[in-house]
Structure formats: structure tokens, C-alpha cells
């Protein structure tokens, strides 16, 4: 398992040598592209604003950020472009929000996807996390709102969570700027390949269905060797996802990594 706990000094918010430089919206020609995904009401936009210095407003509503917001920052001499995706519960429905989020993670191929979750409602949030981990293998879980969870006497075993999900987990309280440095460091490590993720794959799909999924998955893999999300594409094909069918017809999945 990867080591995702940098030294206390590095992660300290009071570190005077902080290497975060906010770039606002000038985000052309950046070194890395980061996607920010998560359920509605997880403080996703606060994380976004924290990283970029933009003041993006999203209310206490699900589905508020229609379209996507972009921003940028510098960290360790690398420039990062970050895209705030609409908050969704899932990536399998047909709402406009979900399509935008799904398409960006799938076709935009971000270098790292930060998944923001509400530490106090982990179970519900994991539904989306598990779906994202089927699509991309470079992700960081941002366990946000930890102070609120603590107030409700909820604690999360980050170590086990990280092990189960196969991606680094960083606890934050974005509203108080707690944990943001550590999040950045982790994102940087994943982007540069210093941390390798071995993401969780959805288990206990009913056997007879799973067998069929595997068959389709094999066909996809023989067509596009090395595709990291062949299983997820098989899921979508079996769900009759028109967008994915069209993308395959047009050869969108040619693997370039």
C-alpha cells in the first residue's frame, strides 16, 4: 500500500513555505489537468475555491453548478488546471449534470480526479466514488467536512478506507483550510506517478450477470488493449448507454496512454 501521509510540516497549513500559487482562470498550457467530482452538498466548491482562489458560488442545492467551472494553480513548480464538475449522486442516469461529469472523466482523461465526499455521509457518497473508480485509476479521495462529522461523533478510519478503495485518502475541512496542503501534495504525487493507485472494482455483481460482463469486457479489451476501464464500458453497453455506443462506433476509445 502506498504511503500517503506526508510529514506534519508539509501538511501544516501554517507552513510559510507554502508552494500553492493560485492562478485564477489563466489556465492555458498547464502541466496537469485535475477533475473535481463529488456528490452535491459535500463542500466541493469550497475545495475548488480553496485551490484556485476563485469565489465560485454554489448553493445548498443539488445540481447547482450546471456546466463546469475551471481554474488553475501552481504547486511545486507545476501548473495545474482544475475543473469543477457538477455535483451528482451517480454517473449512470441521464441527467445533463451527470453527462457532463461522466464525459469529462471518461473522455477528458484528467491526470487526477479528486473525489470530494462528506465524511459524515460516507456510505451514500461511496456510491459515486465506486463508479468513478471504475472509470479512472488515478484518483484521490478528499474526505471533507471532517469537523462536522466529528461534531456528530462520526470518525472515519482513513487507513482502512484507503486500503479498501485503493486510492489515497486525505481528510480535509476546506471551509477552515485544513488539509488542503496535504491534498495538493497527494494530488501532485499521483499526477507524477509517485503514488500508484489500485482502485477498487465493484464486487458481488450477480454471478450470471458478472459472467456476461466479463465476456463483453474481454471483447472490448481485445479491441482496445490496455484500456483501463473496459469493465465499466461493458457495464454501460449492457445498460444501453447511447453515448457510449456512439463513442465506440466513432472509435473514441483508442488508447493513447
Amino acid at each position, binding site marked *: 500500500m502506498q504511503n500517503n501521509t506526508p510529514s506534519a510540516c508539509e501538511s501544516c497549513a501554517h507552513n510559510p513555505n507554502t508552494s500553492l500559487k493560485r492562478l485564477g482562470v489563466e489556465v492555458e498550457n498547464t502541466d496537469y489537468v485535475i477533475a473535481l467530482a463529488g456528490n452535491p452538498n459535500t463542500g466541493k466548491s469550497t475545495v475548488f475555491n480553496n485551490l484556485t482562489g476563485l*469565489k465560485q458560488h454554489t448553493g445548498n442545492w443539488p445540481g447547482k453548478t450546471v456546466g463546469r467551472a475551471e481554474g488553475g494553480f501552481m504547486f511545486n513548480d507545476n501548473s495545474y488546471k482544475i475543473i469543477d464538475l457538477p455535483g451528482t449522486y451517480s454517473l449512470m442516469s441521464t441527467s445533463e449534470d451527470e453527462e457532463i461529469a461522466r464525459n469529462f472523466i471518461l473522455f477528458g482523461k484528467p491526470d487526477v480526479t479528486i473525489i470530494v465526499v462528506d465524511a459524515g455521509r460516507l456510505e451514500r457518497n*461511496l456510491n459515486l466514488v465506486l463508479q468513478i473508480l471504475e472509470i479512472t485509476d488515478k484518483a484521490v479521495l478528499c474526505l471533507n467536512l471532517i469537523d462536522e462529522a466529528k461534531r456528530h461523533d462520526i470518525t472515519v478510519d482513513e487507513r482502512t478506507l484507503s486500503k479498501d478503495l485503493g486510492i489515497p485518502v486525505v481528510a480535509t475541512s476546506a471551509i477552515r483550510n485544513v488539509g488542503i496542503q496535504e491534498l495538493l501534495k497527494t494530488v501532485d504525487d499521483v499526477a507524477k506517478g509517485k503514488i500508484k493507485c489500485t482502485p477498487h472494482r465493484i464486487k458481488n455483481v*450477480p454471478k450470471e450477470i458478472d459472467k456476461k460482463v466479463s465476456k463483453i469486457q474481454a471483447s472490448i479489451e481485445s479491441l482496445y488493449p490496455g484500456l483501463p476501464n473496459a469493465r465499466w464500458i461493458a457495464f454501460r453497453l*449492457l445498460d444501453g448507454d447511447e453515448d457510449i455506443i456512439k463513442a465506440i462506433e466513432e472509435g473514441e476509445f483508442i488508447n493513447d496512454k
Partner: protein
Amino acid sequence: MDKDSAIKSLLEEAAETRWEIGQEFHDKLSESIYQNAAHIADRTVIKEGQKENFNIDRTIDSIVTSPIWGFPIMFCVLAVVLWLTIIGSNYPSQFLAFLLLDNAYEWLRAFAIDLGTPWWLNGFLIDGVFLSLAWVISVMLPPMAIFFPLFTILEDLGYLPRIAFNLDALFRKSGAHGKQALTMSMGFGCNAAGVIATRIIDSPRERLIAIITNNFSLCNGRWPTQILLGTIFIGQMVPDSYQSLVSTASVIGVALLGIGLTFASSWALSKTFLKGEVSSFTLELPPYRKPRILQTIYTSLIDRTLIVLWRACVFAAPAGAVIWLVCNITIGDTSIANHLIYLMDNFGLLIGLNGVILLAYVLAIPANEIVIPTILMLTVMTAPITGYGSGDGVMFELDSLGNTHEVLVAGGWTLLTAINVMLFSLIHNPCSTTIYTIYKETNSVRWTTLASIGPVILGFIVCFVVAQVYYML
């Protein structure tokens, strides 16, 4: 095997397998994912103490959605927000009017005369473009700068979804979504903002209903018209001591009529044009959160107020120019405006309005704020009255209500005209900012046309009926 045929056979295989699995796939997969999530959560989440999670939230919820307190609290909140907006925006509005309309305008004119620019250029730029911009900004900016932050704070608190929850049953009956209560309230501030706010409604049919009917929420560009006419015409009918009561009642009556029309048109739309659109209902009630007041004020100013104001200005500037031009370009001996007024006058009188009012509404499509100034200017231009205004094509308002009354009566206004202008101000096409926003949000010419033309036709019908009834009495 080449790629194309490989792709084809893959898709065929998938279609075949999909048929074998049947319709259950999505269900089964969702189930598995949630099972996985529950399993991981069980291993990692430690809940100390057995107490329920949402204690405080539950208490608040039980109050704000209680059968006894739910509605009173809601109306109090709405009343406070509206009161703060209307009262609070008076002073900055007056200040802006003083600054832009009284001082900057005079200063610009004096400066232009010193510069020696030709009269038509001054008229076009200063009397036309500048004046309409100044009007829109001074009337529109203050209420929006107060209304939107207040609304946003309620939103951040998490209270607004509870309003949708409380009122959903009413909206369901007219085929709409409870969240329309909020986009409607937003419309009382500005219809364009109300239309943007419909993004919170995730069901296609209900969202279209909310977009198309938002125009029936009396926006803040139209409140002044209602208040002015309610005061100088309706209030005049009764003894002095009842005047303010009656005029207030007439204005509130028009706003309530708008709410009634919203429900009626929502119902009609859901049964006709929109019955085939997909409809679904979900309403999530998020946990309450402490709003960050300062950031909210800042972001709601940037996000809502300034964007809407900017759009309004973009449309108002050319409108001012057009107003000035039609009044100052002549064909034969008379100005274009006069020709148009003459053309529309008969139709106007048939529906209890007149040519001046109709022309003013055509010219003022960009912003309802400039309807009254345009009507006053056109009336002075055409009616046998002198001593008011400052020339053709220069919009103005009068400080004295008595004088306004005098000008309008000279223009042939009766009680019927006033009532019908109040009605028509509620029931006519949305302003061009809103029309543009509707197009941006729906991406459909069809729905934009329906939302624009529908209300005008309804307005004509309502005014016609009222006029005929009035003549009969």
C-alpha cells in the same frame, strides 16, 4: 478482422447480451454498488454513541415543516425579504437617480454643447443611450443587490428546499414542481434570474413549465409601474383616508393575479404543449449549514446581480437609441413615432389602451423599467399639453404625482386605461433579457417563442375583455 467490423461485432454481442440479461441490469448493478458502499462504510465509519445523526436538523425541520408553523414562517420570511428589498432599495435608487439622471446627464449635455458636437449625435448618445442605461441601472441595481444576497443566504442555509417541500402539493396539482415556488419568488426580483434559477429543477417538463411561466411573477422593473398607477388612478377613486390602503391592495391584487396565472398556465402547459416531455420528481433536503454571509454577498453580487444587470444594459442601450431615433426621424412631416402611434391607436383603444402605450411597450421590450418614462415622453409629444419633459425622444419622470396624473389625463387616460396598463404590465412578453435567457436555457426556438408570444396574446385578450366589460358598465 479489421477494426470496423470488430467494433460492429462487439456492439452486436453487447446488444445480444443485453437482451439475454433483460431489463434488470440497471437495478442489479445499482444494488451491487450500494452493497459495496455499505460494506466499506461498515468497515471504516465509527459512530460513537448511539444518538441519531440529525438531531438539530430534525428539530428545525419539525418546526419549519410543521402544519401549524410551516406556512406562517414561510410567509414571514418572504415578507421580510420583500420589505427589505422594496424599502431598502429606495434610498440607493434615489441616490443613483440623483447621480446619473440629474447630475451626470446635465453635466454630459453641458459638456457636449461646449464641445460643439452636432445636436443629433448628442441626442442619440446622451438622450438615447445614456439616459436609458442610467434609468435601468438606477431602478434595477439596488433592489437586485439587496434581494439576491438575501435569497442566497436562505439558499445556503438550506431553508429553500423546505419551502419547496411545504408547497409541492400546490404545484403538483398544476403539473409543476415544488421548486418552482423558489424560481417564482426569484422572478419577483428579476425574471431572467428566475429563469436561470430553474436549473435546480431536474425534471425536463417541470423545468420548462417553470421557465415559460416565470414571466407572471411581477419583476422589480414592473413594481414601480404598478405602484404609480395604483396610487394616482385607483387610489383617487376613494376618500383620502382610504387611498393608500386601496392603492396598496390594487398592487398586491395584480401580484396575486400573477401567481394565479402562474398556476393556471402551468396547468394548461402540462396538459397541452408539454404533456409529452419526460417528468420525474426528486427533492433532496440537504442538511442545514451555517452560511458565510460575506462571501455570499460577494458571490451573489457577482453571480446574479451583475450578470443580469450587464445583460439588461446590453439590451437597454440600443433601446434608448431606438427610442430617440423614432422620435426624431421624420417621414413626411411627422416622426416615425407619431406614425406608429397613429397606426396602433385604434387597436389600442379597442383593448382599453392606446397607441402611445403600445408603442412604449414595443420600444421598451429591453427593460420594463423604461416603460413609464417612455409613455410620459410620447404622451407629451402627442397630446395637447406643454411645459413638461425636455424634448422629443428624451425620457423623463415627474416628481409630482399630480403632474404625472395631469400629463396622462391629457393623453386621454381614464380609469380603464390605468387598470389595463396595470394588467398589461403583468401580462405581456418578457423583457428581451429574459427572452434571451430563456433561449440560452432551453436552447429551443419553439419554447422561447411560446414563452414570448403566449403572454402577449393573453394580455390582449384580458385587456379586451376588461375594456368591453368597462364600456358596458
